[in-house]
């Protein structure tokens, strides 16, 4: 799951100087993930992992990093 998220985020949404050095705990919002990017990311997640992510949970805690995104998705998969 992390690999899919990383591929989509770095290919489509944000540019970082070194993808390898960007850890799964690093802050995506500080790296430039904006509102349009978050929308596209949520659409990607819902299609790819067959989940529905509630609007009310789109907050900085859940979209902060690759790791928090994964936890958020897993919570809604079960």
């Amino acid at each position, binding site marked *: 799951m992390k690999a899919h998220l990383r591929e989509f985020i770095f290919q489509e949404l*944000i*540019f970082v100087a070194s993808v390898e050095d960007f850890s799964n705990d690093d802050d995506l919002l500080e790296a430039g993930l904006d*509102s349009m990017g*978050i*929308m*596209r990311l949520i659409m990607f997640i819902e299609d790819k992992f067959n989940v529905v992510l509630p609007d009310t949970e*789109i*907050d900085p805690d859940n979209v902060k990093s690759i790791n928090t995104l994964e936890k958020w998705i897993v919570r809604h998969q079960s």
Partner: protein
Amino acid sequence: MDCTPSVMKIDKTGVLQALNPADYFTLAMDEEIRSESMPGSLCGFGFELDSMPKITLLRARIDELSQRFPLILASLQQRGNRFYWCERQQNEAIFFQHDYPEKEKSELFIQTQLESLLNHSQKRDEIMPLSFHLLHSKNKTVLLLRWIHPLCDAVGASLILQYLCTDDIEQRKQFNNPESESLVNLQLKKFSLWQKIKLFIKAKRYITTLDQQQSIIHAADKKPNKLQLTAYKLSIEQTTKINQLARKHVGLIGISLYYIGCFMRALERMNPEKTGDAYCVPYAFNLRKQRVLTPLLNNHVGVLFAQASREQVNHRSELFEHLKSQNKQVIRQQIDYAFLPIMWAASFLSLKKHGENLRLSYQHKTERSSFWFSNVNLSDLGKQSLCGTKIKGISNLCQISSPPGIALLTCEYQQQLSLNYNYIDPLFKRSFIDELHQLMLEELLTP
């Protein structure tokens, strides 16, 4: 019988680059504005500086920029039915200093110069696509970056300033590296022919739905004369509160929608008697990845619309809920990308026809846009100095077609939101804008 189609020979002498579909979109608006005897699609960022920059260094960096990107010195010319960036016979200066005469009021000088430079009228193939103007008065220094929209979008213009702010030559080489083709064309290549056709039809249907409601226009029915700017910089406290309220009303995904919704409500409160059914607002989204340094020039944008009926505008919480779900639906159904095939197809129309398609409602044959809107994030610029000085404030400007004759350009910089009201006199008057701003503040700060 010879059935080969006759192809008109185009003189490609001196051609540097053809325009991409998004460039044509801005060129059509340039033509619309020029047809109203106005200067065309001039845009500007006014960067207020802490002090005078090192002039020699700034000039050298601008020279280096124009050598690396010759499009900056090019002339926009029509060859056959298409438009191209072409070499000039003779390069012209693109850096100017404007010092204020002692007898003039300092504040007034900067404001007057900014407006004068944005109202500067020149033939399309003669005007320099980009120029830098250092405005200096007794207690204020502003660097105006002025460009014509077919050259680049607002993100590109901010990258140009970032280039000037970058002291390390190796880091400057990272700009526009690797070179990239038009992001609109790259996105279109991801779709098969049938997908493009389906997207095209989807976008046409979407616009037809929008056009069922006649747009509310607040501009007076008068001949446009000149662009004016009234800019307000809010405090850190106000900006923090607005961000918290935006988060509450539209969540993490809709700060632009919060500004748009508040502005719709402020306009409606100014004059609820205006005819029409709904507010309709076009706004661009950028196809670049965030924080990427390439491509530097040309336009790489798609278009979205926010529309709300008068009834929805009058109910605050319902309005934000509506704008949010409308935006989500547009992205979920790929309507944002569906406008790209339309943009590509329209680039083969005459500029006049293209402009009509962009502006006129299919159903009512009246202006589709209630106002223009743009929000730019320039927070990265605050981390660097500019040739020995710091940027302490930013205003943004753009020429507008009439109607709608009014644009709200927002920008958050160093935790302070600036609201830049660009409007065409006499369609709007300064007194109207001052009153409108007070209502806008109320709307932005209402819990």
